């Protein structure tokens, strides 16, 4: 039985930073990057707020640099998905579709995924006017009328970005105020192409069979349904943590995020640490993910040393 000192699940900024630190501590980490590697930065274009990149960097290129740096110190990378874990045994058991691995300690950095509305028409018109990636798809809506669903920072960012292309961007907000930070709100409100519809929920996405033509809106103050014509629907209603693997195995909060102890990355299972967006619904930045990835590697290293 081959035995790893530390296994890292996830290949975003948290996973690779944990790997860099663990590798430099001579723990020769094994990192599962998944069949779709790189995390959420792969879906962005320009990253302008990561220190050390004064001219900005493309998200996918930045992840390539992270990956190179963790390999440089001896991280071994497995291009496969973890399908099951068992924390009831020591060493811990980690399974892919066709192999089993054993590890003394484990770092969970599986990240989070953008949520969908889960309303009729959304799947049918996916790629046909419904999008969760403004930077990918905004280009196709030059001179069109589109909507953005959501009231947080990512909704404001998408709406602002989309005004480069669209004739108008209507933001559909469930409440009568925005969740977004002040600076993002101000930027969006100052943009004459951005309109807001308050207290409203998208109940259905309608189309002509080949593309989106509108949405059915429910006003939760007046209980009135209405239809709004639109060429595109950009969904930015938040994220959900990728913790399906850990349900019933690690303590999760009500939203499904891994619970860590204050000022540490320790989870409810001794020897299992969590870093990045999988344990953070508040900051959700590449830099904070990298920071907690570093913490997780140090926590794992010290925990392993304490057992020797």
């Amino acid at each position: 039985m081959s035995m790893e000192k530390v296994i890292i699940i996830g290949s975003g900024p948290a996973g690779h930073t944990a790997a860099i630190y663990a590798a430099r501590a001579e723990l020769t980490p094994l990192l599962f990057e998944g069949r779709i590697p790189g995390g959420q930065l792969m879906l962005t274009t320009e990253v302008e707020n990561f220190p050390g990149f004064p001219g900005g960097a493309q998200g996918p290129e930045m992840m390539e640099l992270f990956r190179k740096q963790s390999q440089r110190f001896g991280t071994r990378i497995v291009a496969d998905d973890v399908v099951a874990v068992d924390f009831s045994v020591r060493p811990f058991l980690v399974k892919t579709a066709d192999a089993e691995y054993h590890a003394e300690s484990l770092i969970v950095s599986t990240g989070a995924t953008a949520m969908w509305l889960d309303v009729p028409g959304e799947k049918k018109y996916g790629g046909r006017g419904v999008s969760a990636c403004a930077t990918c798809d905004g280009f196709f809506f030059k001179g069109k009328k589109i909507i953005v669903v959501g009231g947080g920072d990512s909704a404001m960012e998408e709406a602002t970005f989309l005004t480069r292309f669209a004739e108008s961007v209507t933001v559909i907000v469930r409440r009568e105020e925005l969740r977004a930070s002040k600076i993002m709100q101000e930027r969006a409100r100052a943009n004459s192409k951005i309109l807001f519809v308050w207290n409203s929920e998208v109940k259905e996405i309608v189309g002509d069979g080949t593309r989106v033509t509108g949405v059915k809106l429910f006003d939760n103050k007046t209980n009135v349904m209405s239809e709004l014509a639109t060429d595109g629907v950009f969904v930015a209603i938040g994220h959900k943590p990728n913790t399906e693997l850990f349900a019933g195995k690690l303590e999760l909060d009500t939203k499904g995020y891994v619970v860590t102890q204050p000022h540490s990355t320790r989870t409810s299972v001794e020897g299992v640490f969590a870093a990045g967006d999988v344990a953070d619904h508040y900051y959700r930045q590449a830099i904070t993910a990298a920071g907690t990835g570093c913490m997780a590697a140090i926590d794992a290293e010290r925990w392993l040393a304490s057992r020797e």
Partner: protein
Amino acid sequence: MTFPYKIHMLELTSSNFDSSVLASSSAVLVDFWAPWCGPCKMMGPIVEQLAGEMPDVVFGKVNVDDHGELAQRYNILSIPTFLVFKGGHVADQFSGVMPAEALKARIEKYL
């Protein structure tokens, strides 16, 4: 690594699309992409890998920045979008990131 794959990938344009894709006797997978699209960059190597593994299928890509008229012709509103052509007609259309096996299985339905 890229060399043996590249030779299977057609760079599609308005002038060669009909003759390479619509007139093809084999199934054709067309990848609509752009250099500024993160998910497209994730799928690029996967598509090239399959082009190397699936000799019975013609693989081509359309840069929507350079060939917007092709994107318009096929109602592309999202990238990456993949179209499978069989006998000159669109047999399937799907968008987004997926693992190599999933893309392969989707194409194999049309062989």
